[in-house]
């Protein structure tokens, strides 16, 4: 039987650069690998990996497996799984870490079932059991109303990790590591899906994931209009971005790209202003990493006041414009 050793991060690129989730996974993986006194590797598979492999080393990888193939230009599970499976079988890692991202959500379970192993998705924390050396995989369950810790004895252990749950290590260009160009024959006859087109629904202004202030609106706003006026004005004063809960996205009031929560984006700004949002656990899952949550809601019993540091009980139509006006005045003065 193969000996399972080392941790491997299945990385991702965004716009040709090492994705921030991958730096977070490397930070987490580095820590685990050090505890186990084993290697940390990173897989980067794309049509062109470029400088990202060096970045992965700067962020903590000892080895980077680079798979470059035109067939990997656009992510599709049937092509990526071939790379993911081959590497797992070739290097027999103890654990595979992936992001709880569009790709991770789509491929991790396929890989786990193909390899015949368990999987914990959307992990918030990973530890090592001192005796068994198994990963203790803590994840959010019941929409964020509880957490659960799992382990799996069948190797490799596979997890996906929630964005922003882990911290990257300090980038260090002098770190040494090995870049291993790896060839995987991708059998196109096994790719049974075909991408016809990709449609970007760009959101103007500050990107949600990068914003230090987010002004977020809920179903209580009643329609698309307040997002473009009341909330937008407040966001502009604070150089922030506008976000939303799921109902506004489902109703088409805002693009899906600004939907925050368990099944939307994960954000962790300095300031998160929740307006007409009840504070359902599934929404809080996406913003609980925020430094300061501020709530404006007409219902004093709303759960959001259990999450917020500061709050005002009142109708947003009256509270928010006055709040914006005063802020503008204070920030100018």
């Amino acid at each position: 039987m193969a000996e399972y050793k080392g941790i491997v991060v299945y990385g991702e690129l965004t716009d040709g650069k090492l994705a921030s989730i991958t730096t977070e996974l490397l930070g987490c993986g580095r820590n685990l690998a050090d505890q186990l006194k084993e290697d940390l590797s990173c897989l980067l598979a794309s049509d062109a990996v470029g400088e990202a492999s060096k970045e992965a080393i700067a962020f903590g990888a000892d080895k980077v497996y680079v798979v470059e193939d035109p067939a990997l230009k656009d992510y599709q599970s049937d092509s990526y799984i071939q790379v993911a499976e081959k590497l797992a079988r070739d290097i027999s890692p103890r654990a595979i870490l992936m992001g709880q991202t569009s790709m991770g959500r789509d491929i991790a379970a396929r890989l786990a079932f193909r390899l015949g192993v368990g999987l914990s998705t959307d992990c918030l924390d990973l530890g090592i059991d001192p005796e068994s050396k198994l990963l203790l995989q803590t994840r959010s369950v019941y929409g964020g109303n509880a957490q659960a810790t799992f382990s799996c004895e069948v190797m490799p252990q596979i997890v996906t990790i929630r964005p922003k749950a882990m911290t990257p290590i300090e980038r260090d260009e002098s770190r040494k590591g090995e870049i291993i160009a790896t060839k995987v024959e991708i059998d196109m006859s096994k790719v049974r899906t075909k991408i016809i087109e990709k449609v970007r629904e760009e959101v103007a202004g500050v990107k949600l994931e990068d914003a230090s202030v987010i002004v977020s609106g809920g179903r209580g706003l009643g329609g698309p209009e307040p997002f473009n006026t009341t909330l937008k004005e407040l966001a502009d004063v604070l150089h922030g971005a506008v976000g939303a809960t799921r109902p506004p996205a489902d109703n088409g009031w805002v693009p899906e790209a600004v939907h925050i929560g368990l099944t939307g984006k994960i954000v962790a700004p300095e300031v998160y202003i929740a307006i007409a949002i009840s504070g359902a656990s599934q929404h809080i899952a996406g913003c609980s990493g925020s430094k300061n949550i501020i709530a404006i809601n007409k219902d004093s019993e709303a759960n959001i006041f259990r999450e917020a540091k500061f709050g005002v009980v009142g109708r947003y139509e009256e509270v928010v414009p006055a709040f914006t006006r005063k802020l503008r005045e204070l920030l100018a003065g």
Partner: protein
Amino acid sequence: MAQVNMIVCCKQVPDPEAPPAVFKVDTAANKMTLPPDVKPVISPYDENAMEAALRIKDKAGGKITVLSLGNQLVRDVIKKPLSVGGDELVLLEDAAFEEGDSWSTACALAAAIKKIGEYDLIFCGRQAADWDAGQVGLGIAEILGIPSITIARKVEVTDGKATIERVIPDGYEVVEMEFPALITVTSELGDLRYAALKGIMAAAKKQPIIWKPADIGLDPGQVGATGRRTKLHRLFQPVKEAKCEIIEGETPAEAGANLATRLRQAKIM
């Protein structure tokens, strides 16, 4: 257009939108407990999956078999898909199926689907609202050896293939896939339609088909708790210490202005 044979997997869960304060973990038993007034529902994304199948049936015709796994499933809840246009309800219902994980659940559902036999499309919700794992659909596809598309917000069918709008981080992609295939559905697709009285009455009369592990060729040891791949060590609720400072004012507008002053003072802005 040829008729489409569909299977929709639906899970019964405690209402995930019950107020957070009512969710309490029994730490001794490692179980979630909820007060009796929190009623079970079909996991919301599974309802979206059902709606996706119904829209295809509306256009192309075909048959929808609803499949669910659990024990002591509440008939009024689990029959809901029949009341809106589902044709058949198959329940994997037995004590042996209890307390499974994604692995044992997907294995049992896939075995049941093999027994059902004919299908063009399988629909699942993107994730179940209790354990939120999002694995079972993909597990079924992998076991059956069929392709899958996850997080669909629109599904259309033309002869022998499905065209899907799949949600991606900053937009969506349009993907084509031939039958047989599996699709997981997200809420943007739209809510499950309401049942008409006629549908509710027809569903009340219809009896589900019930299969035990042996009926799908599995040993009780392969399903539920004994068929798990993952071990649950601990279920818990982290303590929250957040305390909210409520900012007051003579009027809501004044409270809003006071909030600005307070945040400035606290150097938050």
